[in-house]
């Protein structure tokens, strides 16, 4: 695994015991720091702001947002697509890298999976909220309706419902299954009875029997195998929301692959945005080493290039199509009233990642952090451009309009960070943020040579 001159994926000198102690102590031994309290309070405040915005939304209707005819979709859909994208890194890391035997995934997969879940939770909010009548969202589900009605299966929105909920459920199970042995460890290491009890219940009485381990490993492997096509399918389906529409700027077959690439791109950006501060705050540099950061950076570079390729293909196709609507849309994106957004996304998503060609940058956490931030912004902007610029000037010039988010749009977007961070803070305090079991194996494997 360890090519000479490469930073190891785990610092030397650790054994099962020390690994176990170091990770569990974050939860069990470490006192509530001011940092955590402050951070959580801030996140929670944002969350409350979102709840306020949502309350008002339910009272008055979606009219409090900036949406209109022709631009009937706005922030809500942009945020949905963006969050779902973020939610891709986790499963990608745990599933695909597992199948590829990338041992460096070990120390970050738990964290990334948690991030995925929370991102999906945020994403899931928006499609519900953006409905004109959110209280009847369940009409999108197949259930025995007194009118004998069914969802309309040809609509990509119905596909979304299934894709996103499947993704949510599978990610949750994947994450939890991985947690079971660690929960057992927590149970056995926690002193206070109530804690033992709670972790005990969550650990389902896991006792590490060889038979269990065999089935466990098989199930985990199969889950990874299932999650792999799933993670690729989710953003493909999301992209079909646009690709199936006839709107110029949406109606394009390149969307699925290029959305998936974009999703993983933004996902890894988010992983870095969070990992870099967290490893610092909890002194996990030994487990989450520069090597991890660098690998994430490499994946960002790769997916970033795919995304760039997507943009270029889009431009080429609209020229090649010789379709007057499509050509107008493209020019309008580049030079129309929303041009700044387009150029910003080009800067963030195409230009910035090029810096990652250089090892110096890939191995400099602070710079990586800011690059990752830029990419997050860029990917949000990309979705904004896709949704808004395509709609605001489509086929009938007489119906052209414009769109701007209102304060309620912004409150909901920023508030969703609150939800995401609150969950993340709780996770860090209550559960082992790194897979202890897998770390034990890792340190053993690393020892073997000696």
């Amino acid at each position, binding site marked *: 695994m360890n090519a000479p001159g490469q930073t190891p994926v785990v610092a030397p000198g650790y054994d099962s015991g020390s690994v176990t102690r170091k990770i569990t102590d974050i939860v069990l031994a470490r006192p509530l720091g001011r940092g955590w309290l402050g951070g959580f309070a801030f996140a929670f405040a944002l969350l409350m702001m979102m709840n306020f915005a949502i309350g008002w939304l339910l009272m008055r209707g979606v009219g409090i947002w900036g949406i209109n005819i022709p631009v009937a979709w706005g922030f809500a859909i942009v945020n949905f697509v963006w969050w779902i994208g973020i939610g891709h890194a986790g499963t990608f890391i745990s599933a695909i890298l597992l199948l590829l035997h990338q041992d460096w995934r070990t120390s970050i997969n738990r964290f990334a999976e948690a991030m995925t879940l929370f991102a999906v939770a945020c994403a899931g909010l928006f499609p519900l909220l953006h409905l004109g009548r959110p209280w009847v969202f369940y009409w999108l589900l197949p259930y025995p309706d007194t009118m004998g009605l069914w969802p309309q299966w040809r609509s990509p929105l119905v596909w979304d419902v299934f894709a996103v909920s499947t993704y949510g459920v599978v990610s949750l199970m994947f994450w939890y299954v991985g947690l079971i042995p660690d929960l057992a460890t927590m149970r056995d290491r926690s002193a206070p009875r109530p804690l033992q009890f709670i972790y005990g219940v969550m650990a*389902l009485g896991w006792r590490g*029997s060889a038979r269990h381990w065999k089935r*466990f490993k098989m199930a985990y492997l199969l889950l990874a195998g299932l999650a792999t096509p799933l993670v690729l399918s989710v953003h493909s*389906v999301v992209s079909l929301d646009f690709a199936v529409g006839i709107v110029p700027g949406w109606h394009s077959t390149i969307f699925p692959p290029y959305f998936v690439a974009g999703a993983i791109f933004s996902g890894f950006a988010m992983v870095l945005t969070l990992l870099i501060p967290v490893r610092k705050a909890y002194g996990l540099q030994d487990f989450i080493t520069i090597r991890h950061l660098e690998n994430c950076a490499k994946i960002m570079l790769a997916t970033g290039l795919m995304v760039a390729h997507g943009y270029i293909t889009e431009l080429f196709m609209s020229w090649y199509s010789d379709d007057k609507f499509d050509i107008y849309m493209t020019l309008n994106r580049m030079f129309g009233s929303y041009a700044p957004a387009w150029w910003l996304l080009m800067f963030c998503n195409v230009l910035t990642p090029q810096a990652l060609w250089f090892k110096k940058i890939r191995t400099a956490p602070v710079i990586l952090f800011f690059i990752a931030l830029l990419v997050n912004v860029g990917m949000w902007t990309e979705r904004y451009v896709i949704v808004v610029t395509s709609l605001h000037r489509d086929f009938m010039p007489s119906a052209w309009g414009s769109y701007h988010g209102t304060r309620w749009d912004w409150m909901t977007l920023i508030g969703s960070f609150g939800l995401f961070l609150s969950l993340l803070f709780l996770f860090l305090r209550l559960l082992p943020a790194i897979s202890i079991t897998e770390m034990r194996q890792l340190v053993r494997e690393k020892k073997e040579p000696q």
Partner: protein
Amino acid sequence: MKPDLYGFMAEFEQPEELLNAARAAHEAGYRKMDAYSPFPVEGAAEAIGFERTRVPLVVLIGGITGAGVAYGMQYYSAVWDYPLNIGGRPLHSWPSFIPITFELTVLFAAVAAVFGMLLMNGLPKPYHPVFNAPAFKLASQTRFFLCLQATDPQFGERTKYFLAGLNPIAVHEVES
């Protein structure tokens, strides 16, 4: 020997020792036994005579069911139960039925995998005799255990010595 004995449990430092002990016990004719470790140990299950798991089969069945249910539901509702003229498209627009079919296949298979695994493992199981073993807490942290159970025909007082012969850290009596 007490009647309410679940078995004898040997405690080891290293997974290799556990493996050897398990193999030895198996050769010695013991069958009713189990090995416990803080992380999966290659070959431990085979060593105690547990060759193959049926998890994959369950997953396969789950997946097939999912596919069937999904496509069936869509076909039935769109073509039979409530046909609607949607934008002049045919009632059986199969390409549009694919995504949901795929998603439900994955969902059912995944659910089957997780719950299949838990059920076959007999989990959740809040109480189990092995937890009575004094040092067993370490089974989820650093130590490796081999437990020969009282229900095995060969089981007896000598079993204790047999285990002791495998130079473990300790041998514990496990009450049931």
